[in-house]
C-alpha cells in the first residue's frame, strides 16, 4: 500500500510539468517554410516555437481571414487551466499522503483518475471548440476564399491530434512534453490504483 501511495504522489506531481512544458504543439510546414512555423500550447497561453512564429502565422492567416492567435488574457481558459492543474496535483498528493498513512482507501486513486479524465475530456472538448472557431470563423472580407466542393467555406481548423493538409500547409498537432508528462502521471495514478487493489486483495485473501 505504501508503494501504491508513493506512485500516486509521483503521478500527481507529474502534472506540475505542465507549468514548465507545453501541453500541446501544432507545427505548420509548407514549401516556403522548410523550417516549419509552430505554436506551443501551454496551460497559461500560446507561445511560438521560434521567436516570431506567432506573428508570422498571424501574418499568413490574414490572407484567409483567420483571427489572430489569442493572447493569454483573451481566453478565460488560460486563467482557469493553471488553477485546475494545480488543484488536481494538490488533491492527488493529499490523497496519496492520506493513503500512505492509511487514512483513505486506494479507491480514491481511481476517483481522482476519473475526475482528472473528465476534466481532461472537457479540456479537449473546449480546445477543439476553439480550434473550430479559430479555423472556421473567418472574416467575410478575406483576401483568399476557398470553398469546399459543396460551396461551403473551407475551414482551416487544425486537427485536434494528428496530421492534416490545409492548402499549402502540412499541419501536425500532437501532445508536447507537458502533455506526455500528464498522461504518464495519470497512468501512474491508475497503476497505483491497480497496485493498491492487488495489495489489498492479497491482504484479504491471506
Amino acid at each position, binding site marked *: 500500500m505504501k508503494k501504491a501511495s508513493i506512485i500516486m504522489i509521483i503521478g500527481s506531481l507529474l502534472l506540475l510539468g505542465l507549468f514548465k512544458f507545453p501541453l500541446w504543439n501544432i507545427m505548420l510546414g509548407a514549401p516556403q517554410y522548410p523550417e516549419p512555423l509552430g505554436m506551443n500550447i501551454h496551460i497559461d497561453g500560446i507561445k511560438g516555437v521560434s521567436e516570431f512564429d506567432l506573428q508570422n502565422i498571424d501574418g499568413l492567416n490574414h490572407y484567409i481571414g483567420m483571427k489572430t492567435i489569442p493572447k493569454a488574457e483573451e481566453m478565460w481558459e488560460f486563467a482557469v487551466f493553471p488553477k485546475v492543474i494545480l488543484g488536481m496535483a494538490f488533491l492527488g498528493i493529499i490523497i496519496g499522503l492520506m493513503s500512505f498513512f492509511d487514512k483513505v482507501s486506494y479507491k480514491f486513486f481511481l476517483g481522482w483518475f476519473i475526475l482528472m479524465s473528465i476534466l481532461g475530456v472537457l479540456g479537449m472538448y473546449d480546445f477543439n471548440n476553439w480550434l473550430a472557431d479559430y479555423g472556421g470563423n473567418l472574416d467575410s472580407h478575406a483576401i*483568399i476564399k476557398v470553398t469546399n466542393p459543396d460551396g461551403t467555406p473551407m475551414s482551416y481548423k487544425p486537427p485536434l491530434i494528428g496530421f492534416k493538409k490545409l492548402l499549402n500547409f502540412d499541419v501536425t498537432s500532437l501532445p508536447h512534453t507537458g502533455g506526455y508528462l500528464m498522461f504518464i502521471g495519470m497512468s501512474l495514478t491508475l497503476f497505483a490504483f491497480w497496485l493498491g487493489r492487488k495489495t489489498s486483495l492479497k491482504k484479504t485473501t491471506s
Partner: protein
Amino acid sequence: MLVILLGFTSCNNGNQSGGKSGALSNNIAEKVYVAPGEYDSHYAFISGGYSGNVTVYGLPSGRMFKEIPVFSQFATSGYGYSEETKPMLNTSHGFVPWGDSHHPDISQSKGELDGRWVFINENNTPRIARISLTTFETEEIIEVPNSAGNHSSSFVTENTEYVVAGTRFSVPIPQRDMPIKDYKGNFQGALSFISVAPETGNMDIKFQVLMPGFNYDLSHPGRGKSHGWFFFTTYNTEEASTLLEVNASQNDKDFIAAVNWKKIEEYVNNGGGKMMPANYAHNLYDEHTHTATSTMKKEVRVVNPIDVPGAVYFIPTPKSPHGCDVDPSGEYIVGNGKLSANLTVHSFTKMLDAIEKEKFAGEAYGIPILNFEDVLAGVVEQPGLGPLHTEFDGKGNAYTTFFISSEVVKWKIGTWEVIDRKPTYYSVGHLTIPGGNSGKPQGKYMFAMNKITKDRYLPTGPEMEHSAQLYDISGDKMELLLDFPTHGEPHYAAAMEASIIKEQSQKIYKLADNKHPYAAKSDADTKVVRNGNEVHIYMTTIRSHFSPDNIEGVKVGDKVYFHVTNLEQDFDVPHGFAVLGQNNSELLIMPGQTKSSVWEPKQVGVWPFYCTDFCSALHQEMQGYIRVSAADSDVPIKWSLGEDIE
C-alpha cells in the same frame, strides 16, 4: 533476390571507391555535385576586382550565392543610393561611386580563421572595408591616407591585431604640387597598420611606416615563429616614374621588406612617431540604426623607419617579386619573382641570424639590406614562367601560380622539388586554398582565378566573365574538377569550411532593435511630415501592402524622403520599393530594416509606387499612389491606407 543483388553491387562499388583505380574515384562530376537542397562544404569570398564588390560562392559546386556590395554602388539593393548607405562611399575626394576590390582576407584568432569578418582593400582610392559574416554586409570602410594603389593589402595578422595596407604607387607625402621627374628620393611609400578592435572589429590607423619610394606590391604576415613581422614585396626599386615596364625591370633583384611591427608598435605606444595632418574618411555602418556615418579624420601617426632601429630590413629577391607568401609554420617566405625563372624562398630563422650578426650588404635610405645568400632557404628551379602567388596545403606542400605558362605547380617545402603541375585556363593570377593565409590551411580544394577566359564557356561577345578552376588537392596529384565563371575580376579569394559561418548567418533584423530615427515600427507609426520643402514619409511594408498607400500634398520642387520599414520578422521576406520616374535606384529592405530613398518629383501627376521583390501571393497588389501637385498648389498633406483619401 534483386534486393540482394543490388546490395551486393553497391557494396562492391563502395570498396572500389576506396581504392585509387576504381571507376568511381575518377568520377569527377560526383566530386563537385551538390544535390539539390544540400549544402556546399566551403564558403569562398571572391573579390569582384573592378566590380568593387565581393561575391560569395560555395565549394565544390562553384555556385554563386550573393554579391556583397562594398566599394561600388549597387542598384539591386540601393547600396550607395539610399540615404543610409551613401556615407559608406564617402572619401576625402567626396562621394566615389566605384572601387577596385582586390584581396579579401578572413579574420583570425590564434592563427586560425574565425569567420567573423572579411577584410578587403580598394586599390584605386585607397580604402579597407570590413564585411560582417553574420549579416554579409559591409560594416565599415576606412580610407588610407598617404597611400596610392592600395595593393599590398588587406592581410590580417594571426589574431587580427592589424589589417595591413601597403601602397603600390609611391607618392609625395604629404601630397603636393611637384615635378614628376623629381620622383627619386622625394616620393615615399606608406605601409599602414590598421588596428582592429577585438569585439567590434572597428578599424583605426595605428601608424604608417613611411618607406622609400618603391612599389610595395603584395604582403603577408608572419605567423607562428615569425608572428610580429610583416613581409612586403617591392618592385621599381629603380624608382622610375615613367615607362615602368622597362625602367622598373632593370635591377637584378628588388626587395622583400621585412617589417617588425611589434617593435614599431612598442615604439608608437611609447609616444614614438609623429602625428601628421591628414584628411581621410572613416565610414561606419550601424546595424541597429541601419545607417552609416562618415567621419573625416584629420591626422595620422607616421613613423620614419630609421628612427626605429631593427624594425625594417630589406631582403634582396630576384626580379620584381609579386606575391609574398608565408608558409603555415611562419619559417618560409616565398618571393614570387615574376620575371624570374626560379622561385626564391627565404628563411625566417636565417634572416634573424643574419640580423643578429649584422651581416648587411649595404643600405637603402638608411634601411639595412641583408645578403641574398644569407637569408636564402632554397630555390625551386625552373618551375614555370612568371610566378605570381603561392598558397599552402598544411601538409608540407606549396602551390604556385604561373601567369605566363598558365599553370599551377605543386612543390615540396624543404626539398624544393616540383611534384605536379596542372594547366589553368588561362593566365592564372591568384589561387586560393581555404584557410590559405593562416597557420591551418584546410587543404582539400584549391581554386585558380584566371585573367583570360577565351573559349571556356559559350561566347558572350567581346566581354566575358572571368573564370576560376577548382582542383582537388587531397591526393598526390592535383585533379581539375570544375570550371566556374566569376563576376567582375576574381582577383583573389578567401575561403573556409562552412560550419562556423553557416551557423552564425543572421536571418532577420529584429524590429525591436531597429533604432533608425525614421523607422515606423507599426502601422500606427506611419505618417507624412512636411518640413519646408522636405517631405518625410514614414512608411511600412508587410505582406502585401504599403502603409500608407495613398499620399497627397506633395508638390513639384519638394524633396521627398521615403523611409520604408519592413515589418516582416520572417526569414527571406524582403520587400522592394520603387516609384515611377525616380532618379535613383530601388530599395530592397530586409525584414526589420529601414531604408530611405530621396525622390524629387518634377512633374505634376499621380505616380504609382510598388514592391519590386516578389514577396507573396498578393505581390502584384502591393502598390500605392502618390499625388504630386503644382508647386503653388494648396493641397494639404494627407495619407491613408484601406480607405478613400478624403
